């Protein structure tokens, strides 16, 4: 592995200037041109794909770390038990709810924020800078913040704020575990959506809006007929990027609820981690890992195709 690290030294000379070596065969030329790419690519593939091949290998075995010598081939037994495991199905459902719910709410809030910041007012720059902060907070710290200082039944700020409305010592985290995790995720991801949508709003031609306003269109009509269609691809992009990251959420679940009570708030990454590092059941957790990868690939292929199509179409029409 270390030898891969030293690789970048090799191509660090002057970059291959294009078109300088017409005498060489085109094939060799092609490889010279690809050479600068190779270290990064080869490295990433090695670090991610060799372990993944191992994951596939493990997933075909029954192997529990606490029982030495238990390692043996079972072929697809692990997959069968994964799909028969009702906990796995519950956890998969949690993952979908957590990912989609958080992303969609964050997009809506981000859209409101972006619309707000797209207006001119005093201190706009400062407000925008400050609003980005939640996204920058280390996720573990953000999760801790929500757990220990906001949602806590006795010290929590939320109960303190809600106490005039008759909410007593509500134990948010044990009563609404999934929602508690989602609140923290939404809070962190709203600024990201805002930034993306703000970029979208600012790329919007103002003359159309002016013309519509001249024609007497109301604010809502302008928003619905002009702004939203223009923002569509940015919303799609934000949703896809957010979903891709949030599907892998681990820190928030680990810190806030530990997946509990039971598996009420566990998502797939946490469940897999639990099975591997706390249950030491390498075979089963590997099988779940493979299932997650396959599902990610399927979902991501569709989602990304959608985004590329709408961006491609927009670029074509420009």
């Amino acid at each position, binding site marked *: 592995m270390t030898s891969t690290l030293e690789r970048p030294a090799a191509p660090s000379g002057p970059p291959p200037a294009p078109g300088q070596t017409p005498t060489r065969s085109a094939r060799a030329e092609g490889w010279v041109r690809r050479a600068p*790419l190779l270290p990064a690519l080869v490295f990433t593939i090695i670090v991610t794909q060799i372990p993944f091949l191992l994951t596939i290998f493990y997933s075909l075995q029954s192997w529990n770390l606490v029982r030495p010598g238990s390692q043996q081939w079972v072929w697809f037994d692990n997959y069968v038990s994964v799909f028969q495991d009702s906990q796995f199905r519950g956890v998969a459902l949690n993952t979908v709810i957590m990912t989609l719910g958080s992303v969609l709410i964050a997009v809506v809030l981000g859209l409101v924020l972006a619309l707000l910041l797209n207006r001119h007012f005093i201190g706009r720059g400062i407000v925008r800078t400050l609003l980005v902060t939640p996204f920058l907070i280390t996720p573990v710290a953000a999760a*801790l*913040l929500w757990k220990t200082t906001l949602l806590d039944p006795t010290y929590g700020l939320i109960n303190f704020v809600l106490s005039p409305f008759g909410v007593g010592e509500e134990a948010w985290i044990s009563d609404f575990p999934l929602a508690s995790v989602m609140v923290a995720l939404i809070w962190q991801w709203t600024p990201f959506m805002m930034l993306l949508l703000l970029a979208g709003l600012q790329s919007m031609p103002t003359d159309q809006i002016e013309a519509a306003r001249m024609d007497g269109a109301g604010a809502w009509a302008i928003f619905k007929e002009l702004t939203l269609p223009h923002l569509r691809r940015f919303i799609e992009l934000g949703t896809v990027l957010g979903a891709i990251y949030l599907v892998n959420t*681990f820190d928030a679940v680990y810190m806030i609820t530990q997946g509990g009570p039971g598996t009420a708030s566990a998502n797939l990454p946490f469940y897999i981690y639990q099975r591997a590092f706390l249950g030491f059941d390498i075979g089963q957790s590997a099988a779940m890992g493979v299932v997650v990868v396959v599902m990610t690939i399927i979902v991501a292929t569709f989602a990304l195709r959608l985004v590329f199509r709408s961006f491609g179409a927009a670029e074509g029409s420009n």
Partner: protein
Amino acid sequence: MSTREKIGWGIGGVLIIVYCLFPIAWIVSLSFKSSSDISNGAFLPTIATDENYATILTGDAAELFLPALRNSFGICLIATALACLLSMFAAYAIARLDFPGKKLILSTALAVAIFPVISIVTPLFNLWREIGLYDTWIGLILPYLSLTLPISIWTLSAFFREIPWEMEQAAQVDGATPWQAFRKVIVPLAAPGVFTTAIIAFFLAWNDFVYGISLTSTSASRPVPAALGLFQGASQFESPTGPIAAAAVIVTIPVVVLVLIFQRRIVAGLTNGAVKG
């Protein structure tokens, strides 16, 4: 716009800003509260105290926290530097040179970026223990590179595409060697993009939790997020809210400072990479 609408927007704006920022203000305030103050619900501490920071930096928790800070800085800086170096070559090739399979390479990078980390952590854990990389700096730098490289390649090739490469040839016409032309003309133009990429890469590595908690076991290499996780786990029944708040503030500061200084660039970088990709 009517006055009513203006008022509506104003109220909405204030509410959302409070929602985004109040939790942060609250944790900063908590980190300065003394232990008797912590649960009083008041926004400002009655007396600002640095005892929580003292616990973290010199007191009981220093043993856990200080080495973690050192590890995080070291590991993330090395991973960032390597990611920038490697992705510079890759992005140069993608932006500058024509060859078949370019699209395939970008999609491979993207596929790696969305690859669920959790499904490769267990084999890495086993593999690292076999070859002695478990609980070492290199054992974290390698996976961090796989985390940062794909995004770096994407962001940087978006930046490199904007560079007016004709200037390189213009310099060569004026008598510069190819290497000089690259160094004196292209490098200054590319620097802002590289810089933005570096910050994004650092941010990703700094925020990692899965690798940090699975591939380390001692303060020899445990990064800050993992330390924060343990810090809380050790005292589940009486959570040390004050010191945790202080630790959270310290962990977040480097990233926030970096980003606030270079915010414009990062926003441009993120949206460029994402939109033009």
